[in-house]
């Protein structure tokens, strides 16, 4: 019964099913007494793994990742209230945002859904995020990772400005920095002293996990 519900949930997300079905099965899993953290790991995260693999196999495309992220958020909205007070060790803590002057958040939102599926604790700062806000949130949340996204060549330099602000505040050695977005490249990540470049959402999550392991 337990496994049946969890497999069903994973498969519904993996198949990009109707959100009402995803919500119903999530509630059934809670009603069946399955621990909420198990629902996240073996249901939702397993479903996002299927989505990630299908994307890598070029069976799914960006619109499918957006849909999967939406399903994930819907289900998490049901499970999260039940996680309060439950001791769950997160994979790591991430503070993420689109840099100053840039309003694009498609890639960032997909990365967030996949990070949450991989049991990262994620603090989303939204779009058009000032470097000073990244600095404040590092101090506030003590994250393992800072994620920055940019779509425009005009806003790309804000990644360097943000890293410089983090350095100027003497907290660069406290965090790993991952950059991503359409105009970001590995070369640019190296040039500005980021720790990693996420070429797509699944890769960004994979690299985030490696960086947390590395410490």
């Amino acid at each position: 019964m337990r496994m049946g519900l969890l497999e069903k949930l994973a498969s519904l997300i993996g198949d990009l099913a109707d959100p009402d079905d995803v919500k119903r099965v999530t509630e059934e899993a809670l009603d069946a007494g399955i621990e909420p953290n198990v629902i996240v790991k073996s249901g939702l995260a397993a479903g996002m793994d299927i989505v990630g693999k299908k994307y890598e196999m070029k069976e799914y495309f960006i619109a499918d990742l957006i849909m999967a992220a939406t399903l994930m958020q819907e289900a998490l909205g049901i499970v999260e209230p039940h996680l309060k007070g439950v001791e769950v060790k997160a994979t790591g803590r991430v503070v993420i945002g689109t840099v100053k002057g840039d309003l694009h958040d498609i890639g960032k939102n997909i990365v967030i859904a996949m990070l949450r599926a991989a049991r990262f604790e994620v603090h989303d700062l939204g779009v058009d995020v000032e470097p000073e806000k990244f600095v404040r949130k590092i101090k506030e949340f003590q994250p393992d990772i800072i994620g920055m996204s940019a779509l425009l060549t005009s806003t790309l330099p804000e990644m360097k400005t943000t890293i410089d602000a983090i350095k100027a505040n003497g907290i660069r050695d406290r965090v790993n920095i991952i950059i991503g977005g359409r105009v970001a490249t590995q070369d640019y990540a190296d040039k500005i002293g980021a720790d990693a470049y996420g070429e797509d959402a699944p890769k960004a999550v994979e690299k985030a996990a490696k960086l947390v392991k590395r410490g």
Partner: protein
Amino acid sequence: MEKMRLKQSRKPRSWLKGADSQMKSRDINYERTLAAAELKQPDQVPVELLMQGDFISSFSGIREREYYLDPGKMLNSQLAVIKRFCKKDFMFNVVPLPGPDFSVCIEASALGCKLRWFENGPPWPMPIVKVASDVDRLEVPDPRRDGLMANVLEIIEYMQQKVDREYFVGPPWSIGAVTVASLVRGINEFMVDIHLRPDMAHKLLRICMETIIEYLKEVENVVGEGFRVIIGDDMSGFLSKKEFETFALPYNKQIYSSFKYNPLNFFHCDSDTHQLVEIIPELGAGIFNMGPPETCGIGQAKGKVGKRICLMGNVAPYDVLAVKTPLEVAKACAEIIGEAGEGGGYILSTGGLIGRGTPLENVDALISAAEKYGQYPLSR
């Protein structure tokens, strides 16, 4: 929007007749581009420089906001770019310079989206369709009155007067149906609509398509001979083949078919197209400007559709043109010409816009690579 510093004027444009035929007699790149667009083999691979406000304003040392809001500065910076990179007999671009440029905002602004302006970045439209019933309230705008469309038409006339016959002032980029719908609705929301609310998505796409067609009819009137349909629909690359066939193809196809066929009709998508490339020729454009190699290998595209549509692009604007040395740029261009140039039907260009900060010598290297590696018959 801020009031534009622009004097409105109407003058007969009979002198524009034959603008492209004048060019034909004087511009080598036009002849080569036209031959490639007609899937013929020119004497040399043609070149296209894809640039907008991002690169052009930084080249001219002005803030991007000034570029968009002052047609005089827009024109002067575009002319400065042309003078820097183009020779007198080698200045033809399928996406014409000079021409009005408002990034992706023209259609969405006319549909009612408010624009957010940045000091040194392109403007961006804020979505207005929050719920399904909002779509019913949308109306096809009047291009002579609504949003930036009215400005575009005025700017074309202004530029025509300023440059007289020296340059062909062309139609600006139009945004394709899927991207306009995504901007008006919100990108995430529209992609979810496609999965969950297909009827609403179709209704919105229909309005966007009619908006684009009505607008382009007015642009055609102002531009005159030489008009071509130039569409960028990046968000359509977010779709699977089946979704593209359902949500992108019919609407964009109708846009192209609403105008007289021109082999220079242009379709751009620099998102993933490896899944779509086989059906791109069905759109009715003569030229497909594809993205960098990770979105679709040009060898794959050439093999699948090289006999049905002219391919343009595939040089990575960020991974190659912006960061490599001129020698490395030349090598990348040589490889792409080797994969796509055989038999003609290929235009050397970037897979997306040339970005700000791109070294000028790398743009020179791209232009030179066509001459060095693109002479027909191609050497193996």
